């Protein structure tokens, strides 16, 4: 073994390289504060590795991205690998902020380290680019809508807003071209740029040496290895354990598949963008550009110019009140805005709610349309319930209108499906792919088919439906079943000014009984 190692060294001189790496002389008093760079390097390495491995299964197309991420979540080690990558991104933001604050507090950007500082800021920007592009890749609701907001914010760029948004979007809408473009950025362009910049950053750090404690101490420099290396790996180990605990505790969130037609979804940014989004709320209308571009631009400009604003050789933070004060106030503002954004963040759309009438009605329509002929345990296609489907609403609607489109020659064409019934079936299929049908009383099922076919165009129940007529969510508090039935049969008989058309000749007696009893029961 020793001979082999000697042989390798004789040909490569690797021991000299290792010595150059490890015997970096550090000023006396270099301590725990100087471990944050290594923590970042460790976290970035974990991102690079887990990210590279995630590409084994990920598919960057709107049709398959979500399925492939869900597949990764289902793999034994997949949950953990994706968890490390997902939570690792947040850890990097925290470590980055800590590293930057340490550099500011210690005045480490002062001559001759101005360029090291600037390269660090560029790394910061690239890492925010990673966060932004990576967020889209799972192609779930969160991903899609956060990206809609991001691209709309980019339109506020002065002069070139539309051009910037067009470059980010790729195509005319957020879709396949956006996804492949952000994927390329996330796995090729940004990693290459980050690795090169880290090399430059570390090279500059080595060339200028570590800045060390704010008051130089007496004594001779000590080599990096092993004392400081031990501090570094201790911190890396602690952070890695914490990260592993996060990844272990739960798979990263994966909401429903991206649905561009879903008007009820409320986008929420990742926590480290909450402050920025909160800021936007204070600059409404034409002033929005101030929150979106001017304030962040001023902060970035201030940071970039810091070595020239904070001149003079003094590095002790207690004697640099102006800079330390400005940074403290900005930091407090960021934390305050993030906290406000956290408090104001919209509640997540509760998916554990009961099924909507549209979904319940859709189930009955699907039975009426005989979908089960193919979609059954013994059929050509997967059953509608219990099998995960990630088809988008347009796909399902298209399939309903023309099943041959999907399965040529496999089924006789169906009768024309009414537009509202089709919408209800789409809603049902998407719901059923997420959770089993909980079962509802026959009265609810019967009235759901009436409501989802006839009423929903004008009336809302629990937030779903049209706006032309009154909300029927609590109709039972206003009228009894008999009145409602008379009204539905012929509204003008009850109120000559009624605008609602009569349904007496369109609904059967059973349907009229069901819907009026049901509405009267809604208190």
């Amino acid at each position, binding site marked *: 073994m020793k001979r082999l190692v000697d042989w390798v060294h004789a040909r490569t001189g690797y021991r000299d390289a290792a010595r150059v790496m490890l015997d970096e002389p550090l000023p006396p008093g270099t301590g725990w504060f100087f471990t944050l760079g290594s923590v970042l390097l460790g976290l970035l390495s974990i991102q690079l590795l887990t990210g590279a491995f995630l590409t084994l299964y990920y598919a960057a197309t709107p049709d398959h991205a979500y399925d*492939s991420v869900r597949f990764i979540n289902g793999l034994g080690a997949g949950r953990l*690998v994706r968890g*490390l990558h997902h939570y690792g991104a947040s850890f990097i933001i925290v470590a980055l902020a800590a590293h930057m604050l340490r550099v500011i507090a210690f005045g480490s950007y002062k001559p001759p380290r101005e360029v090291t500082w600037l390269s660090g800021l560029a790394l910061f920007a690239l890492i925010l680019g990673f966060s932004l592009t990576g967020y889209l890749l799972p192609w779930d609701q969160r991903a899609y809508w956060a990206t809609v907001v991001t691209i709309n914010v980019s339109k506020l760029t002065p002069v070139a807003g539309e051009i910037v948004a067009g470059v980010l979007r790729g195509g005319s809408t957020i879709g396949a071209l956006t996804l492949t473009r952000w994927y390329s950025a996330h796995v090729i362009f940004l990693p290459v740029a980050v690795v090169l910049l880290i090399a430059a950053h570390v090279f500059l750090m080595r060339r200028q040496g570590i800045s060390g404690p704010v008051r130089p101490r007496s004594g001779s420099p000590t080599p990096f290895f*092993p004392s400081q290396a*031990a501090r570094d790996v201790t911190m890396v180990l602690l952070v890695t354990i914490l990260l592993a605990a996060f990844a272990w505790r739960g798979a990263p969130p994966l909401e429903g598949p991206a649905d561009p037609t879903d008007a009820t979804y409320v986008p929420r940014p990742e926590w480290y963008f909450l402050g920025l989004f909160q800021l936007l709320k204070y600059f409404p209308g034409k002033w929005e550009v101030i929150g979106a571009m001017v304030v962040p631009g001023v902060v970035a400009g201030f940071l970039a110019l810091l070595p020239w604003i904070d001149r003079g050789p003094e590095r002790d933070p207690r004697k640099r009140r102006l800079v330390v004060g400005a940074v403290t106030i900005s930091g407090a503002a960021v934390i305050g805005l993030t906290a406000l954004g956290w408090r104001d963040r919209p509640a997540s759309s509760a998916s554990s709610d009961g099924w909507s009438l549209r979904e319940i009605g859709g189930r009955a329509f699907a039975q009426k349309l005989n979908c089960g002929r193919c979609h059954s345990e013994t059929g*050509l296609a997967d059953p509608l319930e219990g099998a995960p489907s990630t088809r988008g609403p347009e796909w399902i609607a298209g399939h309903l209108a023309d099943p041959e489109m999907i399965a040529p020659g496999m089924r006789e064409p169906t009768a024309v499906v009414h537009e509202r019934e089709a919408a209800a079936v789409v809603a049902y299929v998407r719901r059923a792919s997420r959770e089993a049908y909980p079962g509802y009383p026959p009265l609810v099922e019967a009235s759901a088919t009436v409501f989802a076919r006839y009423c929903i165009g004008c009336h809302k129940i629990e937030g779903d439906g049209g706006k032309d007529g009154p909300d029927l969510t609590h109709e039972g508090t206003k009228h009894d079943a008999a009145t409602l039935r008379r009204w539905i049969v012929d509204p003008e008989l009850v109120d000559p000014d009624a605008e609602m058309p009569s349904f007496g000749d369109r609904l059967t007696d059973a349907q009229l009984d069901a819907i009026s009893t049901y509405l009267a029961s809604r208190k």
Partner: protein
Amino acid sequence: MSHTTETSSLGGRRRTLILFVNATVALIGGGLSVLLGAFAFGPKARAAEGRWIRAGTTSDLKPDEPVARILAVSRVDGWYRERARETVFLVWDGDRTIRALSATCTHLGCQVRWEAKDKKFRCPCHGGVYGADGAVLEGPPPRPLATIEARIDPADTSVLVRL
């Protein structure tokens, strides 16, 4: 080198630190390697859960005469769901028993054909010949044609095969 002038207790501390650094790096690196290795080799082909598929009724079949049926099977390949077509020969005894044979030659995977005139399956690739029951009669195939679970639904005489 300066280390040689250190006292023996400092040398011991140095050795401990080196051990600690190396052990920690090995721990993190090893942990990640195991995890990522499991991730890369991980996707066990889940035992394809066969599903009973309708393949016509006995009225479409002739007793003891293999009839080819092309069936659409939905297959899950990782995250990708596809509808594959598979040829199956149904052999009905004219009564309550049905056998289904895979059309895939056991030699190198070509699709065999039923030759009605000499009542044999022939593989077009390397001359494999099977009898109507799937047994090898001639040529290189190492095994008889694979049998696929099949049954007749007594209710409506439809044929179900498990794919």
